[in-house]
């Protein structure tokens, strides 16, 4: 690899990392603002114009607070757990294409950090790693609330990962590739070429599973405030708590980006051929990606203030008895369709 290529990759990594962290900050602000708006309140609006600097104030507050390690906690794991949760959440974005190719310095640069051969599996693998952070945090805190939260979330994540994986399988069947780039390319062209129109059932299953995977309402049983105090992060304070917070939002961002990539054509702007427009097309594609992602991030908050939390047995019932058979049925139908199409 030559020097220029290396620099380009480095720049891409930095840009994606910075963008993710910035979006985390924006999400922290939006979460509180949108929540307030939906409850007829105004929300934070004192720090900076319209309260825009609120996340920074929060961050300073988090850093200033006393870092408490509870007595009887397993210290090394207690310290390690937030990092285990945060790192996979940030790593996932590496394989998601966020714009059409751009030509700079006489070479074509794909707007994606790494075009991994098995991209979608990479994402699924990393999301399954995130559960360690939660489970270990719950276990190491030496608190029953934390332990219950950790146990609940591990069972929940395992249950919903299956449905999510199977929903993705039908997409893989359609596009015939595990590369996210190919999946995006497959969805370009005519108006109804996005996977959401081809695979509405898979989309619904995936969306529900994503909410369970990111531990967001209505599936936030692992941190149910009303019953478990704070769930797995009950005992955490200061910057470690902030890391849990950041990980949750980073997970949401990747989940939204993945939903867009798999079902909403990624950076595809409907009915426009981005690659023929040069630099303008790239800007258009990135904007369309951000716009779609923004909608799904808004949906996360929107859903949070609309639906009540599931009971634990209902959650398991939905996962195993409804979503899993539906996903299998969907794969069956998709495979059948593809077979028939190949024969005809």
């Amino acid at each position, binding site marked *: 690899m030559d020097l220029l290529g290396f620099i380009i990759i480095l720049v891409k990594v930095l840009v994606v990392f910075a963008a993710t962290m910035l979006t985390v900050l924006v999400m922290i602000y939006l979460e509180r603002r949108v929540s307030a708006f939906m409850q007829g309140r105004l929300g934070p609006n004192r720090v900076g114009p319209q309260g825009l600097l609120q996340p920074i104030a929060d961050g300073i507050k988090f850093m200033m607070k006393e870092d408490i390690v509870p007595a009887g906690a397993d210290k090394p794991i207690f310290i390690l757990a937030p990092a285990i949760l945060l790192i996979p959440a940030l790593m996932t974005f590496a394989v998601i294409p966020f714009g059409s190719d751009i030509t700079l310095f006489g070479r074509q640069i794909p707007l994606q950090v790494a075009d991994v051969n098995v991209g979608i599996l990479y994402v699924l693998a990393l999301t399954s790693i995130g559960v360690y952070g939660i489970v270990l945090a719950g276990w190491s805190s030496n608190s029953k609330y934390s332990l219950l939260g950790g146990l609940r979330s591990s069972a929940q994540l*395992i249950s919903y990962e299956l449905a999510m994986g199977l929903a993705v399988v039908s997409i893989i069947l359609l596009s015939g590739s595990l590369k996210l780039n190919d999946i995006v390319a497959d969805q370009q062209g005519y108006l109804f070429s996005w996977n959401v129109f081809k695979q509405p059932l898979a989309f619904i299953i995936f969306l529900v599973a994503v909410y369970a995977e990111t531990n967001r309402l209505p599936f936030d049983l692992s941190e149910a405030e009303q019953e478990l105090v704070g769930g797995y992060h009950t005992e955490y304070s200061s910057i470690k708590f902030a890391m849990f917070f950041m990980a949750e939002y980073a997970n949401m961002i990747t989940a939204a980006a993945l939903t867009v990539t798999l079902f909403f054509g990624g950076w595809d702007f409907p009915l426009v051929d981005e690659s023929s427009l040069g630099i303008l097309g790239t800007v258009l594609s990135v904007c369309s990606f951000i716009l779609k992602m923004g909608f799904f991030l808004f949906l996360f908050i929107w859903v949070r203030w609309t639906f009540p939390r599931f009971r634990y047995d209902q959650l398991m019932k939905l996962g195993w008895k409804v979503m899993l058979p539906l996903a299998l049925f969907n794969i069956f139908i998709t495979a059948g369709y593809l077979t028939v199409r190949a024969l005809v």
Partner: protein
Amino acid sequence: MPLSLLFYFAALIAVGSAILVVLNRNAVYSAIFLVLCFFSLAMIYLLLEAYFLAVLEIFIYAGAIMVLFLFVVMLLNLGREKALPHFMKFQRALSLMLVILFFFGVSLIMVVGSGELHQPTIKFSSGSVYALGEALFTKFLLPFEVASLLLLVALIGTVYLAKRKI
């Protein structure tokens, strides 16, 4: 060559964490080190150009199997393993000796017979998902189906074992 250095680095982590898995008295620590071991193995798979298996290693072993382990360890809420009764010390020493004997014996055989090992091929074409899938659904179709049957049996068996009342 930096790539081979990466291999030895991963190998070192794998062996180190494997030893820690075995020597740790706390089951949770064992599980964590085992996950670390799996990660370094996944890295070695990547270096050996088995991309699909590298991801599967993390996905299945680290993501599913070890979570199950942790889940059970927490469910049973085990503390540290208690110290061994005195009369078993001898058996432990014996086990260590046997293992060392095994390791050196096999490596001796390998060193003596290493001339017969295949020379590496420069171009590797079988690492892709496509090749693996092709082999899985043509040449190894029967084992694949049997494996799925095995999973089904395991599923039923687990439910039967774990439920107090059927």
